[in-house]
C-alpha cells in the first residue's frame, strides 16, 4: 500500500510536468500528421505511416522514460522531501519501488495515449482497426519498462546528467543486439568474448523491435506470440534485477 501511495503521488507529480505534456502533444501531432505522406502508392503509404507512427511513439516514449527515470529519485533528494518520506514508516525499498511504479504509470499513460491516437489515425487511413499495432505499442511499453528500471538504478548513485547519458548510451548499445549477436561467431576469441559480454550483460533493447513484422505483415515469424511472451518475461526479469540492485545501492546510500 505504501508503495502504491508513493507511485500515485509520483504519477500525479509527473503528469504536472509541462515538459512531458509538451512531448506528448508534439508526438500526438506528429502521429496525426502521418497521413500527409499519402502521395506514395497505397502500400508504400501504409508502410511509411506505420513506421513513422511506431517510431514517434518509440522516440517520445524514450524521452519521457529517461526524463522521468532520471528525475524521480534525485528530485526527492534535492528537494529534501525524501527525509520526510523516509522518516515515516516507509522502507527504502518501498520508496524505490514506488518511484519506479509511479514513473512506469506515467510512461504507460503517455504511450497508451499515443497508441490510441495512432490506431485511430490508421483507422482513418486504412478503414479498419489495425489491432496488430497494439503488439507494437505494447512492446515499446515493455522496452521502456526495462529502460525505466535502468534509469532508476542509475539514479540511486548518479547525478541526473550522468544518468541521462548512461541510460541513453546503454539504450543505443542495447539496440545494436543484431550486431553483437553476429559478432558471437567472430573468428577472433577476444571479439567473441567482448561481444558475448555486451550481448548478454547489457539490457538487450533491440529484442523489442518488432516494427518490421507490423509494417510488413507478410513477414512470417515463427511463434510470434511465444516471441512476444519471451520478451515480456525478459523485460520484467531484467527490470527486477535492476530494481533489486537499485534497492541494495539505495539502502546503503546516505540521504
Amino acid at each position, binding site marked *: 500500500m505504501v508503495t502504491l501511495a508513493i507511485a500515485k503521488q509520483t504519477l500525479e507529480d509527473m503528469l504536472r510536468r509541462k515538459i512531458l505534456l509538451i512531448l506528448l502533444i508534439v508526438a500526438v501531432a506528429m502521429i496525426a500528421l502521418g497521413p500527409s505522406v499519402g*502521395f*506514395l*502508392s497505397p*502500400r*508504400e503509404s501504409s*508502410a*511509411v505511416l*506505420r*513506421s*513513422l507512427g*511506431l*517510431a*514517434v511513439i*518509440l*522516440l517520445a516514449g524514450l524521452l519521457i522514460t529517461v526524463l522521468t527515470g532520471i528525475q524521480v529519485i534525485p528530485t526527492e533528494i534535492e528537494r529534501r522531501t525524501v527525509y520526510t518520506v523516509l522518516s515515516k514508516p516507509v522502507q*527504502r*525499498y518501498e520508496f524505490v519501488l514506488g518511484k519506479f511504479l509511479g514513473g512506469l504509470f506515467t510512461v504507460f499513460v503517455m504511450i497508451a495515449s499515443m497508441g490510441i491516437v495512432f490506431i485511430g489515425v490508421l483507422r482513418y487511413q486504412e478503414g*479498419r482497426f489495425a489491432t*496488430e499495432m497494439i503488439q507494437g505499442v505494447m512492446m515499446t511499453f515493455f522496452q521502456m519498462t526495462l529502460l525505466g528500471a535502468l534509469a532508476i538504478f542509475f539514479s540511486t548513485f548518479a547525478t541526473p546528467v550522468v544518468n541521462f547519458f548512461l541510460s541513453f548510451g546503454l539504450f*543505443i548499445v542495447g*539496440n545494436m*543486439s*543484431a*550486431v553483437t*549477436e553476429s559478432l558471437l561467431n567472430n573468428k577472433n576469441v577476444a571479439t567473441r568474448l567482448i561481444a558475448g559480454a555486451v*550481448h*548478454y550483460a547489457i539490457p*538487450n*533493447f*533491440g*529484442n*523489442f*523491435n518488432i*516494427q*518490421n*513484422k507490423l*509494417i*510488413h*505483415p*507478410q*513477414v*512470417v*515469424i*515463427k*511463434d510470434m506470440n511465444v*516471441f512476444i511472451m*519471451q*520478451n515480456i*518475461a*525478459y523485460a520484467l*526479469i*531484467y527490470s*527486477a*534485477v535492476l530494481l*533489486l*540492485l537499485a*534497492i*541494495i545501492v539505495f*539502502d*546503503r546510500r546516505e540521504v
Partner: protein
Amino acid sequence: MTASTRRNLIAAIVVLFALTVVLQVRIDPTVADMNQGRKTPFAGLSTEFILGPLLGMQQAVAGLLWVRADEFFHEGDYDAILPMVRIVTWLDPHNLDVYITGAWHLAYNFTDSSERSDRRYIPAAQKLLEEGDANNPGVYDIAFELGWQNTDKIKDYVRAHYWYKKCAEERKGMDERGELTQPVPMFVWHQLAHSLARLGRIDECIAVWRKALAMSTEIVRKDPKDYSKRNVRDSERHNLELTLKRKFSRYQHEIDWELDGKLTKGIDPITGEPRPRDSYLFLNQDEIQRKLEQFKIVGETPPPMAVGQPRPPAVVPKWETAFDVRPTFTADKVLELKGRFNVGDGARVTIRLHDEDWRPPQLKEFTFDIDQNVTLMQDQHSVRQGTWGRKIDMSKDPKMYSFKSPYYFLVFEFDPRGTSPFVHDRFGWSGEGMTDKKYLWEEKEKDPPNRILRKVYRISRAQVLRRTPITEADVFPTAKYVELQTQAQGTRSE
C-alpha cells in the same frame, strides 16, 4: 537491510540474471529471422540519419528515405535514387516496393538522349529483384516483377517462365491485413500462360489457360455477382479459345478468318477444332490458286489441293523473308541502317551493338556500379512495306557509348517468339513457317527449337569513327558469334 537480506537479494539477482541470459539465447534466433537481409543498423547512412537506426527506428528512417527518393524521382534526379534504394533495402529488407521500383528505375529510366535504355543496368536490376525475392520468401510480388522484366525488357522468355511458374505455384498473395493467406491473383497465371506461348510450348500454354479458367469458374460460382471476377473468367475463356484456334490454324489447317467472322468464332474446347468445319476448307478455286502461288515463290512442290478439302496449315509453305540490312556510319558514332524484310508491317527488328568481348554479366551480388567502359546499345525498328531502317546517333551520349573497345559486334535480329500474333499467324510461334536464304539461324538448343533471323557484323573502332566503311566482308558467322556469346557465362541464381 541486514547482511543476510542483502545476501539473499544478491543471490536472487544472480538467479534472475541467469534467467535473462537463457531467455536471450531463446530470443536470438527469432531476432535473426526478423533481421534477415538487413545490414548493420547504420550502414551507408549519412550523419543526420544515423541516430534513428541506433535507437531502433530503422523502418522509420527507411520510410523517410523512400519518401525523399520519391521526390527525387519527380524531380528527374534518377542518379540520386540508386544509393537511397540500396540503403532503404538494407534498413528494411521487407519493403517490396523499394525493390520493385528500384529495379524499374535501373532497367527503364536510365536512357540516352533518344530514350534508349542503358542496358548495362539490367543485370543490376535483376540482381536487386533476386535479392528482394530471397529476403521475402513466400511473397509473389517480386517474383512476378522478375517475370515481367524478363518478358518486357529483356525478352528472355525462359527466365520469365521460370519466375512466373515459381510465382504461380509457390507463392501467396496478401489478405487485407497484409498476411500471406491468399492465392496469387489470376493475372499471375495469365502471364505464366503467355510466357509458355512465347516459348512455343503451346500445349502447356493451353493447359495453363484451362487450369486458370477452372479456377476462375470456381471463384465466380462462389461470388456470381462480382463482375470483375466474371470479366477475368471471360478473358480466360477468350484466350483459351484464341490459342486453340491459332494452334489449329497455324499447325493443322489454316482457318479462313475472312470467311465469316461469326462462323469462325466457335471452337470445340476439347478437340480445338473450329466450328463450322467450312472455315478451314478450300471453298473455291481462287483460294487454291493463292496458296499455289505461295508454294511457287519458295520453289516447293504443293500437296494435292481441292475444293472441299482442308487447307494446308498457315506455316506451309515456308515464307521467304529476304532479310537483309546495310549499315553505314554516316558521321562519328552515327549509324544509319537500311534494311529489307519481307514480312507484314509492324514486325520489329532488333539492333544491337556491343563490345566484342562483352557478355551478359552474372552479378554475384547487387551493385549499381556499372563498367562505364562498356558500350552496349540496343534498339528496335518496325518494318513498313518490306523495308526498315533508322538513324542511331550515339555521339551525344559518351557516358553510355564510350567506344573504348577496338572491335564491336553489330547484330540484327528477328526473333518470332517476341513478335505479334499477326506475324505468328504466318510464321508460327517458333518461326516454323519462316525461311531465309542467308540469315536463318535455328536455335536447336531450345525446346522446341526456335528459328530466328540474325545478321552479325564485326566492326572496328575505326569504322565506328567513319574512317573506313562497313562492307559485307565484315559479316561475321552467326555460329561463331553464338559460340562466343555463350562462352564465359555463369549460371544464374536459379
